[in-house]
């Protein structure tokens, strides 16, 4: 099996209805996989934003591929709010699972560790907690007095999807200090990674490079997609394409312009 596969083959590995974990805009977003997913007509996805998302979630939501959004935020950052997300919220076409950043991390880490749940401080008295029927509050059994603490159940994505600078031909992936990418992969049943390039040598061979490497053990499929995070930034590689981000934001505010944007993205002739 070649180490990298075409992106449409990877898209077929993300089934409809999958619980799909995606990283925040600064961590390595596989924007390259958005068009292949839409082209194959993905729908019913349950997005797990780790711990927030931006343009990737917004496009997938606007294109009707998403049933549920589990997130601490969806925003285009300096380009403003996420228009398709906001429309979907108002019209009630997606199920919302609002969280707070460390709760998303806690759920993934519980899955990573085979723990049924993790406790998390904070949250008590918030409407986030009030709306999460899947969370529990118990009394800390180690406290002498009453001490309520929230329990976050393990959150095991079906698929983790992200973009990284490089993989080697053994399937090891460079994640640098973005350890949440490793957490996503540990927790998920399968992990799909797009990369800028395949490098020579073995990323596990030296202590130096191994420290920033996700071992192949946790990587199920790799695709090569140069510039594959754009218009999001990729750490150590390129900055956010602010103009492209603002252009998207402008288009997404108008449903017809959004449809044209998606058609152009997926290579269809706009109506």
């Amino acid at each position, binding site marked *: 099996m070649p180490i990298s596969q075409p992106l449409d083959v990877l898209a077929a590995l993300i089934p409809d209805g999958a619980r799909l974990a995606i990283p925040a805009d600064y*961590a390595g977003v596989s924007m390259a996989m958005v068009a292949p997913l839409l082209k194959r007509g993905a729908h019913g996805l349950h997005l797990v934003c780790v711990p927030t998302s931006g343009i990737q979630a917004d496009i997938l939501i606007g294109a009707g591929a998403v049933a549920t959004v589990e997130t601490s935020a969806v*925003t285009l950052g300096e380009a403003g709010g996420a228009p398709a997300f906001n429309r979907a919220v*108002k019209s009630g076409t997606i199920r919302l699972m609002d969280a*707070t950043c460390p709760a998303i991390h806690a759920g993934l880490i519980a899955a990573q560790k085979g723990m049924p749940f993790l406790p998390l401080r904070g949250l008590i008295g*918030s409407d986030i907690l009030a709306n999460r029927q899947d969370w529990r509050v118990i009394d800390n059994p180690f406290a002498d007095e009453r001490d309520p603490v929230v329990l976050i159940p393990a959150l095991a994505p079906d698929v983790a999807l992200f973009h990284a600078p490089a993989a080697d031909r053994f399937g090891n992936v460079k994640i640098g200090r*973005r350890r949440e990418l490793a957490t996503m992969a540990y927790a998920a049943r399968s992990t799909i990674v797009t990369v800028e390039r395949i490098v020579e040598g073995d990323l596990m061979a030296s202590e130096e490079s191994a420290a920033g490497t996700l071992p192949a053990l946790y990587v199920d499929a790799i695709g090569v997609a140069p510039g594959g995070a754009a218009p999001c930034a990729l750490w150590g590689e390129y900055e956010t394409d602010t103009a492209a981000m603002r252009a998207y934001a402008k288009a997404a505010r108008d449903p017809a312009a959004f449809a044209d944007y998606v058609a152009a993205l997926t290579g269809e002739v706009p109506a």
Partner: protein
Amino acid sequence: MSAAPGASPREILIATIADLLDGVRHVAVGASSPIPAAGAMLRRALNETEGKPPVRLSILGSVRHNFFTNGGVELFDCAAQGRIDAFFLGGGQIDGEANINLVGTGTYPETDVRWPGSFGSAYLYFVVPRVILFREEHSPRVFVPKVDFVSAPGVSDPGTFRTGGPYALLTGKGLFDFDKERRRFALRSVHPGHSLREIEAATGFGFDHAAAPAETPQPRAEAMRLLHGRVLDELAETYPDFAASLKDERAAA
């Protein structure tokens, strides 16, 4: 202490933040928060000048001001360990009990207006000792009697684990302290050019205040000197547009 007459509103906000941060060892600032970042940089510069302990500044999303190597979770772990003394939170709505709403207006989940979401507020508000609520827009739509959605509550029952919470509220019009026992803000000072009457009209909740509240002090000369020296240079690395506009403003003053 001599004042630099005619400091701009933003300069006053930055200097006020630097004052609020007196004594902190480590302050974290969100990615798109140039005024809090400038205030923290000014605090760091003042400490150096005054021979006080060094101040560490983490700017989330900045590569240069990133002291973290354990991914996105490290900020929260670090705060849980008591290693972050101050943080800034805002809110689409903030009410008189210091509850903040970053989710939206109307009835959840199908809110009329949706904002991005709560981010880490529901955690950090509980564990960072000095949370500074910062919102420039001071209007009745922001400062409401009761938020429509509590992203994070301002106060908790005595039995609830909480080592952090609201320390001050800074707006474009004034500076408030928060009394956790009384669950109520108290106006500490009114920024130059604004009035108690104006603040009352723009605030949807009641708050304590003196009959004639103090005016927010002008930045000290030393603070202005540092702000327009090294702080502007440091700011320019992460917020070039903001740094340029502060500079232009001063040149035009």
